[in-house]
């Protein structure tokens, strides 16, 4: 997806669609890595990643709230919403892949790349920080950006991307008048009553202040606040959470980046199912149990997204039962991950997340 400078509400709709897509795109790699850990092993690492996933879901919901607040409509069922794995993150010359793969040191390194902190801001102005590089891949988590001069640019980090959205919100709110701009139906907001589980407070968005608060929370939970490892809420940011797994030690409040002083975090890198990296439907022999299980998973996942989408589009009360379905998804994923692929010695199955290749099971 290619974005332009934010000049009108339609532009922001596109940015926020991209934001929701981006937040979602981290979930399949993260949960797959968790689910590849063998039962009763790596409990600590599992819990570290689990908290991040919970927060990504909060971010997704917050982005949906912002989009709803300005009269947009979240769309999680559009074709192409779920990226095709491997997918790419823009990081200049050393372009790298984000994969669906087993829990491993390399995977954690990739997760660190996804969550890497923004470079230092100058005057709080972001656009001039963009890295300009040529990469024509259509499969990227972060969208590209075409500058006023027609130059294709890339956001260096997720934080930069949100800072840009924040600027756009402020600019349009001034231009159109706050009341006119935040004209979305407040009934479409996901409020604390409907939001399941933690990861910080869900913020109902009704004006510029709450919109910027939502954006701030997303950025800081991901990457920390102005270079600090803890955010304003005193929570460790995602980058440093993953780093705990890499370094094998927990951070404590007051620690500095790269130098955790907490308890040891023990990891058994061998207690992991070795899954096929970035599996595709074709990897499973047709009519095999794995093939069936994968179709079942993808269908269920597609339907799951449809239910979340329904909740974000005027039926917030449907969010609670929808989230409950994640338990079913987890068990379905285990059916794949705990079973070897026929004919491939020691390589296990995994969900392919190819939702565009399966029909929906039921209308919401």
């Amino acid at each position, binding site marked *: 997806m290619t974005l332009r400078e934010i000049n009108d509400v339609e532009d922001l709709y596109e940015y926020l669609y991209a934001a929701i897509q981006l937040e979602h795109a981290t979930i399949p790699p993260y949960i797959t890595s968790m689910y590849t850990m063998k039962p009763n092993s790596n409990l*600590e690492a599992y*819990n570290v990643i689990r*908290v991040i996933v919970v927060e990504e879901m909060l971010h997704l919901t917050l982005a949906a709230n912002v989009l709803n607040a300005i009269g947009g409509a979240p769309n999680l069922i559009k074709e192409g919403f779920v990226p095709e794995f491997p997918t790419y993150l823009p990081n200049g010359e050393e372009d790298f892949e984000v994969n669906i793969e087993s829990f491993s040191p390399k995977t954690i390194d990739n997760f660190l790349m996804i969550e890497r902190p923004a470079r230092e801001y100058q005057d709080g102005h972001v656009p001039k920080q963009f890295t300009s590089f040529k990469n024509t891949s259509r499969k990227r988590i972060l969208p590209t950006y075409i500058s006023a001069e027609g130059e294709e640019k890339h956001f260096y980090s997720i934080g930069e991307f949100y800072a840009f959205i924040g600027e756009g919100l402020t600019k349009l709110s001034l231009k159109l008048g706050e009341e006119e701009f935040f004209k979305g139906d407040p009934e479409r907001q996901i409020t*604390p009553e409907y939001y399941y*589980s*933690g990861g910080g407070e869900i913020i109902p968005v009704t004006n510029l202040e709450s919109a910027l608060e939502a954006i701030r929370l997303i950025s800081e939970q991901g990457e920390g606040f102005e270079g600090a490892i803890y955010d304003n*809420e005193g*929570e460790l940011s995602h980058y440093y959470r993953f780093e705990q797994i890499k370094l094998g030690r927990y951070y404590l409040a007051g620690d500095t980046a790269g130098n955790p002083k907490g308890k040891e975090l023990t990891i058994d890198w061998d207690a992991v199912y070795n899954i096929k990296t970035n599996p595709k439907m074709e990897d499973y022999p047709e009519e095999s149990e794995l093939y069936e299980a994968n179709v079942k998973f993808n269908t269920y996942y597609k339907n799951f997204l449809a239910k979340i989408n329904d909740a974000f589009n005027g039926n917030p009360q449907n969010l609670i039962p929808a989230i409950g379905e994640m338990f079913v998804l987890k068990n379905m994923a285990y059916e794949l991950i705990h079973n070897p692929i026929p004919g491939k010695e020691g390589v296990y199955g995994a969900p392919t997340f190819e939702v565009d290749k399966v029909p929906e099971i039921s209308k919401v």
Partner: protein
Amino acid sequence: MSNDHSKITYTIDHSTASQKVYDVVIVGSGISGSILANEIAKEGFSVLIVEAGPGKDLSLTGYEKLLNTFYTAVTKDNNAPYKSNPNAPMPRSPKVQKARLGHPNTDNYMVQNGPFVTDTSYSRVVGGTTMHWEAKTPRMLPEDFKMRTLFDKGLDWPITYRELQPYYRMAEKEIGVSGNVESQEFKHLDPITKEFSETSLYADNYVYPMHQMPPSYLDKCVAKDINGTTLELDGDKKELKVRSFPQGRNGIPNVEYRKYNNGEVYRPVAAVSSHQAEIGERCQGNNNCTPICPVQAKYDARKTLAKALRTGRVDLLPQTIASKVVVNPENGRVTSIEYKNYKDVNSSEYESGVLKGKIFILAANAIENARLMLASGLKSTSNLMGKNFMDHPYLLCWGLLPENTGTFRGTICTSGISDIRSGHFRRKQAAFAVDIHNDGWGWATGSPYTNLLDIVDNKNKYGTALRKELVSQVSRQLLLAFMVEMLPETSNKISVNPQYRDRLGNMRPVVSFHVPDYSMEGVAYGRELSKQLFQRLGAEDYSIYDPLDYGYVNYNGSGYAIRGGNHIAGTHIMGTSERNSVVNFKQRSWDYDNLFLIGAGSMPTIGTSNTTLTMAAMCFLSAEEVIKDLKKITSKTEIASPIYNSISG
């Protein structure tokens, strides 16, 4: 902001603790001790908690180890998550054996004199018995506090329901209760007019912090056939209705609760963890709520304890058994607690010492409080220490429903029948509450594990056929548990005998217990009612009470297998004077002014409510009293200190 995950500091060694004089020394880290510790520490006072059992690891990983012990345990009893610990043993229900006439049952930690042998249990670990509780939190009824006046049975409390009401609210906030006030508005007697009252049990349009747990599909199926059943009992006309139970597990916050929470929506308290965990803020409907919730959505006392420890004014000494309460005979005040500290559950080695404080609080539970007081050889003016021991007798009735009701889904129990909790009939027979168990016949027969073994071993099924058979067997199961009222009797008691000691030489509790006829009358009525209900539901009755069962009781020609309720109470009952009770309504010992005995042991009657909520409410009341005492002591010290300074200077 979200739940506090800052570091929990409490590490202190015994020699440091022994040198300090704490404002308060508390024995027991269960819900009572934890509430007192937190309330007192919030006011700036220092607190030491001694806990007999292990469990200082308040991390998520530590908790998951307990879960894993439970998952891999062959017998899934209430104490299955906790390692056997001969240094601070606890009752284990699978070890209970039938009484033999004239021979006390000494195999288990509790020595049982009989005639009734109870399988009631409690946990000696950090967090106490909330580490296995079911978390049902109904309030007691106004009439329960006036049993003697209204029904000429049992005892009156020295405090009324209305007086306890504000403390009930504090307890419901602390525990985090999910419930529906309307579902608890069944007809109950007004203790003053003695007639059925329509007055709400909950004043000022009160609501619980969170909405009720969603009733299970099983609840709905049962309600469909049972709602509207009428019966007449001692002149009272009753119409039965399936109602949801309030419970201490996290649900969806009720925005109306703002009024009772300083304008804020209630924030569910998540898992206890020293690192951000984001787990446990909502019940996930796992069916194994007892002994321990897989995600810590169920309240346990460690949630309160963690808050207390975070004040920085509370020290915790686990693996430390209070072995003696020491009193200065001259002024009748408690001066210290003697302890035995073991380093390892696998070794009988221990070190002993003395802990000093200004005020002492025994919060070790009804059996352990009495045991410690009696083992300390302390006088009791009323001679009631250890007496009036109570526990809810449970009658289990199980049947197979005609259709699949999705049993084994949802939390362990979401609804039941409460209409027989109140009425004039209580002058003749015990009241009861009925639970509809979402975990099927588990309690009675060990389902679903026993079903699985049967299908594999006896029916030789495997694969899809095995799965189908298992589902068809368990998903029609219905178990009704009748929780029957029990009244205080001095012959039901806890005592000690130097002949019976644990590995560290501490005297074990000796239980003398029989189920009073008043309760058995209720049990018999409950059994008859269960048959009627099964008939209405078209259920096949599978209830069998084996005469060889350790809990078998013969009453009026019929036999019943009675189960313990784990609601141990009444060994140091509260009353109006040192002659009729052990403590006053603030749970202060009549005999020892700076000693409080807190918990369900102080309850003179237990009605038909699970005891934890009421005991928590009583603890909030006691906390106010202890804080008042401490402020008095502090102000005296402040006045005294200039004189001291002038002398020393």
